[in-house]
């Protein structure tokens, strides 16, 4: 329940960041706007990766509910790997933008873009750390209380982060300014 | 207290000589519209307040513990509750409708007759009058500061913006306030029924000297306004050679003119070529502007309308003049006898000591080496005398 509340609260956080981006997305020098820098095919792939990680996460939750430790650990690891792929993609994307001349401070568009996606990236990273911690602790059998529940909570968080990306991907990448 | 204030304000308004920024004494159409809306609202609020307070007083006295038995443990009466919910709702509908219509009324720009650009910066106001047919016709742009001169009985459209932070333009007797936001242009209607001076104040916190960022609106009847426009467009007259003022001109050119523009001021090189002196305050001042001093002595105040250019007597004479006499008195400007040399001297000697500003070397280091406000220039008293003599001719 606390997790649900926390996520409700996060809606306002990301809402604020997305709104800021929406307000500022058009404010940039003509040659360095979203239409110029975004690499839609690339981002589509990494979005797809993140989306699929939701599937593996749900499988982990389901295995945990069936008390299948091995499968739980497997799926958690896969989820973490998919997440890491996504973050890796983002890092790559950021560096390539940077090489094209789009720094954090270049324009309002870039500041708000990096802030928004950066916040999301940090959330994913935190999620990965949580997943790996889960696997680690689980291996040593030290998840106290109801294991399935802890996995499910992390799952909620993970799905939420995915859902936020669904919105960001559409509003930020697909809809041109 | 509110009820009391509202009631007594209604009674006493008019008889006492109140503060010049009194918000309950409209002197123009727009402020009047606000007032017509607000006094009934205050009255209603006052009445509601009195009723509630009276009810509390009554209950407190009537039902205090005098040894009566334990009261009935009643949990409420929904019908009464609902009635007492609907009543305020109705009152608010009554308030809401005129509110909405006044909002749109005040936003209307179709009946304004002339345009003045108002720009706020730390910590003074610049007014520039674009050349236009409105306002009875202005042939060339005029730039001034501190006192906003408008034709009386005319609806003027102010276009407000700012060069640095947010300020707010407010002449309570003429209209409500409107923020001046950098990067945005907001509009505000101004109209004064009668010639006279109306006090105002920057009301959005804008840093160190926010308290010293005042302004005044001066309404002149249309003829006087035309005279004023004429004065502003008069060409530059060089001081008589060899006079104090001529020495002042040189001192000014050397020490002041790189920030302050005086239209028509020019310098003559040894070889005789004459070049106009153009200020470039953007290199020295954060906001990129300093007041235009071409006709300084046509205004009565300086440095964000915080100090008078007139001595107290002369000032009172202008402020207390009847609407008929006002225009002529105002157009006299600042004469040698009336000049408040004390404050002006102090200003030129060490401006930041008089008005908190951001102008020391250490402070400049934090803002790309530029000042906010006017720095101390380290002039000696003779130079100051000369400069004042020179400025006195900027009328």
């Amino acid at each position, binding site marked *: *329940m606390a997790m*649900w*509340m926390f*996520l*409700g*609260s*996060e*809606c*306002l956080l*990301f*809402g*604020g960041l*997305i*709104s800021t981006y*929406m*307000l500022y997305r058009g404010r940039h020098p003509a040659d360095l706007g979203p239409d110029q820098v975004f690499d*839609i*095919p690339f981002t*589509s792939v990494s*979005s*797809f990766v993140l*989306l*699929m990680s*939701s*599937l593996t*996460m*749900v*499988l982990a939750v*389901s295995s945990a*509910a*069936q008390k299948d430790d091995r499968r739980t650990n497997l799926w958690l690891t896969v989820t973490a790997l998919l997440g890491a792929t996504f973050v890796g993609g983002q890092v790559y994307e950021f560096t390539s933008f940077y090489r094209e001349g789009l720094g954090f401070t270049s324009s309002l568009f870039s500041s708000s873009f990096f802030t928004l996606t950066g916040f999301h990236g940090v959330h994913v990273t935190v999620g990965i750390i949580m997943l790996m911690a889960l696997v680690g602790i689980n291996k040593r059998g030290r998840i106290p209380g109801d294991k*399935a*529940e802890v996995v*499910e909570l992390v*799952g*909620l968080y993970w*799905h*939420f982060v*995915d*859902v936020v990306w*669904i*919105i960001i*991907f*559409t*509003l930020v990448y*697909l*809809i041109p300014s | 207290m509110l009820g009391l204030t509202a009631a007594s304000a209604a009674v006493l308004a008019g008889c006492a000589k109140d503060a010049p920024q009194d918000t309950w004494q409209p002197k123009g159409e727009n402020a009047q519209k606000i007032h017509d809306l607000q006094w009934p609202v205050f009255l209603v609020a006052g009445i509601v307040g009195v009723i509630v307070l009276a009810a509390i007083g009554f209950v407190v006295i009537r039902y205090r513990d005098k040894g009566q038995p334990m009261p009935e*443990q009643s*949990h409420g009466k929904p019908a009464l509750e609902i009635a007492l919910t609907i009543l305020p709702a109705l009152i608010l509908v009554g308030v809401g409708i005129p509110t909405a219509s006044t909002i749109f009324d005040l936003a209307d720009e179709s009946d304004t007759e002339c345009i003045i650009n108002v720009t706020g910066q730390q910590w003074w106001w610049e007014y520039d009058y674009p050349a236009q047919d409105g306002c009875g016709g202005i042939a060339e742009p005029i730039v001034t500061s501190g006192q906003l001169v408008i034709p009386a009985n005319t609806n003027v459209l102010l276009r407000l913006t700012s060069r640095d932070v947010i300020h707010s333009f407010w002449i309570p007797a003429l209209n409500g306030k409107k923020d001046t936001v950098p990067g945005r242009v907001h509009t505000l209607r101004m109209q004064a029924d009668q010639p006279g001076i109306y006090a105002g104040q920057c009301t959005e916190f804008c840093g160190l000297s926010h308290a010293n960022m005042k302004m005044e609106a001066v309404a002149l009847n249309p003829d006087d306004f035309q005279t004023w426009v004429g004065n502003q467009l008069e060409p530059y007259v060089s001081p008589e050679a060899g006079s104090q003022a001529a020495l002042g001109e040189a001192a000014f050119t050397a020490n002041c003119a790189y920030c302050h523009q005086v239209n028509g001021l020019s310098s003559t090189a040894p070889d005789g070529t004459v070049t106009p002196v153009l200020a470039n305050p953007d290199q020295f001042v954060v906001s990129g502007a300093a007041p235009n001093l071409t006709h300084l002595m046509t205004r009565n105040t300086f440095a964000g309308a915080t100090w008078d250019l007139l001595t107290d007597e002369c000032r009172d004479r202008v402020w207390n003049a009847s609407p008929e006499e006002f225009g002529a008195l105002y157009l006299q400007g600042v004469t040698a006898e009336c000049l408040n040399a004390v404050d002006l001297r102090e200003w030129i000697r060490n401006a930041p000591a008089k008005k908190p500003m951001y102008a020391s070397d250490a402070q400049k280091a934090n803002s790309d080496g530029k000042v906010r406000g006017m720095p101390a220039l380290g002039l000696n008293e003779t130079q100051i005398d000369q400069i004042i003599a020179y400025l006195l001719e900027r009328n």
Partner: protein
Amino acid sequence: MSTTADHVEHADHDHGDHGDHAPEAHAHEHKPDSYYVKIALILAAITALETSTYWVDFGAFFLPTLLILMAIKFVMVASLFMHLRGDSKIFSYLFYSGLILAIGVYVAFLATFRFFAST
């Protein structure tokens, strides 16, 4: 004890039942993995459709299509993966109240900037 309690009683038929430490059972029945895989396939298909707008011109339908597809994806993940559908109502209340508040507030916010006016 004859108290006023009984006429307060009628007031409460809400989530009061959580009050007595009743464990909120996570009692959603377990779906087979294939069920989730199917959902994921649908989601993948939608994503493919979305990205196709990058190459194919949808004309006037472009914006609404994207927004609707986005909403579908959102709801699918939230309600199926996150089990919002099966879980206690109060969870969805907590989450959706945040979500709806966020949408409402920020849409109003953008509206004050005339964000929706021109485009």
